């Protein structure tokens, strides 16, 4: 542990399990000031620790943590502490895939549990977010869905942002999808965090984080093609996809196959020939709602042959 604990709040004195935090610290030093006591507590508790580096190398991490009293040499050697790169994880295959990344957390938590660890304490550098990698438009969705991971109670995730590379509006959106934020050397509950109601449906796609669609490799355009045939892309994206399709026979054929599938599925849209009793039963049950004294009597249950209005 560091000689001086810069974070007197109890929020920072443990391994942070169950917490999903966005660190908007002003400097990488501030972020290591948070991580060192967090990883120390996690290692002491027998948690698996995981760091996903983008700017930080394994040696850099080891030194930065060691300077703050958190030695990870031995845990690295034993496998209790693991270092992965952004290229191995967030950006595997050159693109960000929210589903794949969420699966990774599920697997990492399960693997920690299977190996007898008491939890998973993880942190990742998202300092690549402004670089417009394919799939990054789903970043807010990904962060939102971390909060819904079943394993979250035994997992702590701290996302390390570099706010100097991100627009203010995006930082505001990021606050809405993280229950906790680290800023001004303190971790607090995010006042902007939204959950319940329509909050999931309100999480936007951030097209500005992705390359233009006509710059994407064909393999990474497929997701957009599917939304394109649904007419669900914003105008700029739609125009970009249309430009690509006019120049790429392969993708044009793919789009056509999505259209054919869509048309085949649309033909399943057949109003059901409901039984003669369905409407009578519904009406009887509606009457029960108005008059609960009849509920469980003639209006209850299905079938409803006895109901005639």
């Amino acid at each position, binding site marked *: 542990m560091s000689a001086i604990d810069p974070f007197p709040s109890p929020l920072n004195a443990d391994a942070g399990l169950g917490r999903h935090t966005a660190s908007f610290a002003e400097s990488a030093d501030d972020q290591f000031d948070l991580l060192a006591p967090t990883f120390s507590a996690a290692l002491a508790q027998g948690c698996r620790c995981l760091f996903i580096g983008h700017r930080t190398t394994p040696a850099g991490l080891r030194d930065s943590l060691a300077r703050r009293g958190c030695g990870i040499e031995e845990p690295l050697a034993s496998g209790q502490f693991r270092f992965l790169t952004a290229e191995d994880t967030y950006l595997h295959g050159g693109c960000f895939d929210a589903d794949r990344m969420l699966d990774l957390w599920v697997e990492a938590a399960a693997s920690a549990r299977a190996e007898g660890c008491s939890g998973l304490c993880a942190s990742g550098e998202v300092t690549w977010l402004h670089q417009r990698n394919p799939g990054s438009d789903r970043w807010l969705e990904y962060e939102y869905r971390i909060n819904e991971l079943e394993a979250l109670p035994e997992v702590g995730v701290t996302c390390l942002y570099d706010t100097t590379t991100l627009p203010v509006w995006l930082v505001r959106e990021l606050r809405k999808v993280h229950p906790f934020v680290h800023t001004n050397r303190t971790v607090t509950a995010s006042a902007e965090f939204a959950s319940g109601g329509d909050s999931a449906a309100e999480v936007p796609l951030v097209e500005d984080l992705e390359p233009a669609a006509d710059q994407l490799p064909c393999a990474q355009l497929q997701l957009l093609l599917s939304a394109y045939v649904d007419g669900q892309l914003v105008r700029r994206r739609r125009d970009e996809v249309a430009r690509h399709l006019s120049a790429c026979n392969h993708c044009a054929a793919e789009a056509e196959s*999505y259209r054919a599938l869509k048309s085949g599925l649309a033909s399943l849209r057949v109003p059901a*020939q*409901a039984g003669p009793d369905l409407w009578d039963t*519904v009406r009887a049950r509606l009457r029960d709602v108005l008059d609960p004294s009849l509920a469980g009597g003639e209006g209850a249950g299905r079938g409803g042959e006895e109901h005639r209005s």
Partner: protein
Amino acid sequence: MVHACHAAGLGPTELTSASTTQAAFEALALQYLSDLMGSALRMTRNWEEAQDLTQDTLVRAFRGFKGFQPGTNFKAWVFRIMVNTYINSQRRSARRPRTVSWEDVPGESETGGFDPLAEGSRPEGTTLANLPDERLKRALDDLPDEFRVPVLLCDVEEFPYKDIARMLGIPLGTVRSRIFRGRQRLREASTQDPASAS
């Protein structure tokens, strides 16, 4: 209905109001009954469960009818209730094995030909037994709900992603991804050689 309101101890004003509410609700519900039942059948893949789901949906919708804003999209509102009702029922119980296949669903003659929509508005030859492309239908039936429900809501019910996101309580990007992944699986499965698929 008048008798029911009297029995509930409602006075003349409340009675008129309740009657008006029920009449307004019934007019809307009747308009979408066949659509709801059709969608319920596609979701549950079981005739009896579909009837239950349709009934439960309309009862829940009626209970919450005060929350419906006249002039807004009733279909999206009531479908959201149905999708929620379906998802909750799936969460409560592990999915039961299918007992009735699409082909076993009673045709028009067996159900007495009841159709709450005007006779002329029903598509020609739309009994459930002669739905198009058997392989596609089976592939859709075999999709996990995670993909099947968004695909149904998009391609069959023709809701925009935004409505589907609200119905399922998931982000827009998840809707887009699940529809895409569902379609990938459907394309794969429906183009498979039937012999190798079975």
